[in-house]
């Protein structure tokens, strides 16, 4: 049977990265590498005291130890897992809520669209970190709760972009053609419109993910992310801060550096992807 479908779009659109994008991909890859091979890379348990307190970096403890005597290198490597899991989880939640709502809102129009847009605009106008803090303070610590708190902040970002794209796509000739041959709304939304918003979702994802990383770091800096003694960069940064005055520089330098590497890496990828799509739009 011949089914009438627009171009089959792959789930992950082909993107050509610039040098900057590749540099960013390298930084993110480093973090992912640490997260996956954490047990092979670390000599100690990150949650237990394994050495003397406040030992500067040395052969035995490459990045030193903290007040409790935990190995900082092990905590940094395992911390990559914590932040990546939260970032991934919260992104998936934002997409799962924002994308379908954006599709439906843009496609259906009318009162539903107005109400949804208004709620989303209100959330969007809220300073993101303060909203996430309020959510996290209310929900309590834990990986899932942190992910939810962050996800809520980014739902409107996906919603707005997907809705805007849907508005313009639904006026296109091929959608009208589909309606003419008797396709129902669900089919039109899923098979005709959704494939064409995927590229915009990719752009939104790459542009917002660095922000998600920084929000997670900020929540854990406020002690609102995962509970101790789970290794978490933002938390370690906060925990090391009081010792900064006495010159224990390694406690804050390395966790913060990792947050920066991950966030800068994602930003570079985002810049590169956005540039690619912009260039393609200009060409076509």
């Amino acid at each position, binding site marked *: 049977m011949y089914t009438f479908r627009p171009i089959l779009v792959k789930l992950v659109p082909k993107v050509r990265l610039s040098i*900057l994008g590749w540099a960013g991909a390298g930084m993110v890859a480093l973090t992912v590498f640490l997260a996956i091979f954490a047990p092979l890379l670390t000599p100690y348990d990150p949650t237990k005291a394994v050495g003397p307190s406040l030992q500067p970096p040395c052969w035995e403890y490459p990045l030193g130890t903290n007040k409790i005597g935990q190995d900082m290198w092990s905590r940094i490597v395992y911390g990559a897992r914590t932040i990546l899991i939260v970032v991934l989880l919260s992104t998936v939640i934002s997409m799962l809520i924002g994308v379908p709502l954006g599709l439906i809102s843009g496609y259906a129009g009318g009162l539903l669209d107005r109400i949804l847009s*208004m*709620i989303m*605009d*209100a*959330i969007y*106008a*809220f*300073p*993101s*970190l*303060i*909203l996430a*803090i*309020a*959510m996290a*303070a*209310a*929900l*309590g610590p834990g990986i899932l709760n942190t992910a939810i708190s962050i996800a809520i902040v980014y739902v409107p970002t996906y919603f707005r972009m997907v809705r805007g794209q849907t508005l313009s796509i639904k006026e296109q000739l091929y959608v009208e053609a589909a309606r003419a041959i008797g396709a129902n709304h669900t089919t039109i939304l899923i098979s005709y419109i959704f494939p064409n918003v995927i590229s915009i979702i990719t752009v939104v994802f790459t542009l917002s993910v*660095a922000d998600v990383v*920084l929000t997670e*770091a*900020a929540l854990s*800096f*406020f*002690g*609102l992310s995962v509970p101790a003694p789970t290794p978490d960069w*933002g938390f370690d*940064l*906060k925990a090391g*801060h009081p010792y*900064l*005055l006495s*010159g224990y*520089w390694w406690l*804050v*330098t390395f*966790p*913060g*550096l990792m*947050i*920066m590497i991950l*966030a*800068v890496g*994602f*930003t*570079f990828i985002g*810049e590169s992807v956005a540039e690619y799509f912009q260039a393609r739009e200009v060409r076509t």
Partner: protein
Amino acid sequence: MTSLKVFVIARLLLVIPTILLLVSLVFFIMRVMPGDPVIAIVGMKAPPERILELRKALGLVDESGNPIPLPIQYFNYLANLFRGDFGRSLIWGKRPVLVEIMEHLPATIELAMAGFLVSIILGVTLGTIGGWKGGKMSSAVKIYSAITYALFIPWIGMMLQLLFAVWLKVLPVGGRIDPGLEPPMITGLYLLDSILTGRWDSFVSALRHIILPSLTLGLVISGVFSRVARTSVEEIMRQDFVIAARARGIPEHRLVVHILRNAFIPIMTMMGLQLALLMTGAILTETTFSWPGMGTFLFERIEYRDYTTVQGTVVFFAIIISVINLVVDILYAYIDPRIRY
């Protein structure tokens, strides 16, 4: 009625549902949470009288201890807010939340203004150089914009503390002013108050304290301005009047003035959009530098599980941001006649 008046009225009307939505959001986030907030505050073993007292303070039960249904709680909450009652703290002598907010607000405004100034000077200068020189300089500024956007404020703050306060020992590590040097209260902004009252020792102390926090905050936000400045300068450089001016032999240093004047419209637009980022940034900066503003206050009360204060502060932020957005929108409509409904 002129179209500007229509715009202002429509925009004013729009702010009401926005604020209502935001405060409702905060209410439901804080209320519909798993577990009992009261138990979370005082623990399982607290005496029943203390639990009852807290339930009353949170507006969960009435005077005789009967639970209040959620819709009524919501209505009471809105009615109180409407009267300007942001609730009372659960700790520290049950002080009104609004009074405490007002005590901490000037410090945040002072820091935000200083940070804003640093970010504009830094961002616009770099962006103009990048757009003007083009080529490698433009790419360098582009990378600068990308990196500053991804900076984690507490870490940058701590690195500056480490360098200037711990190792070089030239600037204080945190706080707002040396103890005992606080200028007499006029506006609550120490730098301004010390000038108004002629207290130069206070001024120097306040200035020394604000350098690192404002540099941290300014650095992070400067990326946005360097990006806008660079792209708009690049765009204007391509315009006919620049080519014509060059053809007439107008010296470059005079051309810069003309280009900057044109580039300032998009930069101005960006300024208004950055206020929310500035607030968020100020919270993290304050916590890092023990700056006694709203951020430090909010952070401290989260740690003490002072729910009414946290809720009140978040609502306050929501209202402030809505009002700022309102003012910015109306200002733009006033400046640019194309913006109308």
